[in-house]
């Protein structure tokens, strides 16, 4: 089976600062990778590489066996910690946007029957994340948790192959966080997603993922801390979330 994502000896440097080095990683479709590591070790950089926002300084990244496109595209959705939703669009407008952009390259808008169909799809997605009652609100009128659920709905309505989450729940309080965990797990199962999720909370990482990637420096020079980059120090298969899926993924990975 072709891996969904494959890093082949990827290095990422900014000037003389090495951020990531000798990164080799194979991720099968349907895996839920949680990523933890010290602040500044390059977790966001890894997601930006996957987005295509940055290109590796060395090595290459394959998506379904093909070189990863060098710019963001609809096959890779993302939820940032902040600024993931468009402040000038209503809740419905935010989710409708992707559908409109796909269908109307010039006007970026849909009208009539096409719009009604897209609207139904968007509303169904919003109901799935529990925002069916807030269609007309603007993001500034939503709580932090609601904004992140909106960002999820907005990404998932495009049916991406890969979902990237950069500390999406970092700013939420514990109760809402738990709700969001259930939501993400459900959406992951229902949408056949491959997920990369950065988190600062290692318990969250253990609970959610099928695989936990720990990033840290592999070697360290006290005189030149920027000389060496981080790599994967632990790559742990885990499965508290869903043992069945984990077994499948593991079996698929060995085939």
């Amino acid at each position: 089976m072709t891996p969904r994502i494959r890093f082949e000896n990827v290095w990422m440097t900014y000037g003389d600062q090495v951020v990531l080095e000798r990164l080799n990683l194979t991720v099968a479709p349907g895996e839920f990778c949680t990523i933890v590591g010290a602040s500044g070790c390059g977790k966001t950089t890894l997601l930006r590489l996957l987005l295509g926002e940055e290109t590796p300084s060395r090595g290459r990244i394959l998506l379904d066996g093909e070189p990863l496109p060098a710019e963001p595209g609809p096959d890779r959705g993302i939820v940032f910690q902040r600024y993931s939703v468009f402040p000038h669009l209503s809740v419905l407008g935010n989710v409708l946007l992707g559908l409109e952009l796909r269908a109307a390259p010039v006007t970026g808008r849909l009208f009539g029957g096409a719009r009604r169909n897209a609207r139904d799809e968007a509303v169904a997605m919003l109901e799935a994340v529990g925002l069916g009652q807030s269609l007309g609100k603007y993001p500034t009128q939503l709580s932090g948790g609601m904004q992140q659920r909106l960002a999820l709905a907005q990404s998932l309505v495009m049916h991406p192959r890969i979902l990237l989450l950069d500390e999406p729940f970092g700013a939420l309080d514990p109760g809402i966080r738990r709700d969001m965990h259930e939501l993400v797990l459900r959406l992951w199962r229902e949408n056949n997603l491959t997920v990369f999720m950065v988190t600062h909370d290692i318990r969250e990482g253990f609970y959610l993922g099928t695989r936990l990637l720990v990033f840290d420096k592999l070697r360290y020079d006290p005189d030149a801390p920027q000389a060496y980059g981080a790599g994967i120090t632990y790559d742990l298969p885990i499965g508290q979330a869903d043992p069945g899926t984990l077994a499948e993924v593991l079996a698929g990975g060995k085939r």
Partner: protein
Amino acid sequence: MKRLINQRPGPVSTAALALLPFVVLALVYLLASDARLAENPNDKLLPSFTTLAESFVRLTSVPSQRTGEILLWQDTGASLRRLAQGVGISAAIGLILGVALGAIPLIRSGFAPFVAVLSLIPPMAVLPVLFIVFGLGEVSKVVLIIVGITPFIVRDLQQRVQELPRELIIKAQTLGANSWQIVLRVILPQVVPRLIDAVRLSLGTAWLFLISAEAIAATEGLGYRIFLVRRYLAMDVILPYVVWITILAYLTDFLLKQISRRAFPWYHNGEPGR
């Protein structure tokens, strides 16, 4: 006692505090005017409030013997038309260039330094050129306003576009947007309220250039009238005109603010006092 920075006036004292400087100004004027008129009843420099009021009524109701039109309305119409044309065209150029420069690195590299240099040209210094090229008619006055405020609007808008969170531009790309769609659906709608802000900020400058151009060459207009009657020391005309221009400037600004609030509620959600 709370700290000074934490003391807030109630609604009544807010209104009173706002009125206070106006009342003080009127009182100072009244005293100075009375003092001068007591010395010389024919003094023209600080006419009494009664003279000013009479003059204002005359300006707004008695048709001119020469043209048969009421001068103040005629002048207001001419000036506002020039201002609207100048500011409207500047806003349109500002929006198009500002978004192009802010959103597209290739255009930015090519033109941003050019715009920066252009914006340093003192507009009044090129007014003679405008008169030579466009003649003494309406066009040169409108163009002076455009030359005067467009560089500011362009650069301000470019800045606003570049200030949009990078995340939003990335997010749009993950929703499949092409460059045109990003401009149309993500950047433009977010910078139009900021364009209104920029226009509000540049209105004062626009009036400055309008009145300067009218003072130098015109046959009607608020600035023309003020500079015409200056020869006769007609403070009873000049002062009502100045107050009238101030009121017009205030109303324009107020109107733009209201339009922005109506049309872009999401932009004003976080504003204090709402």
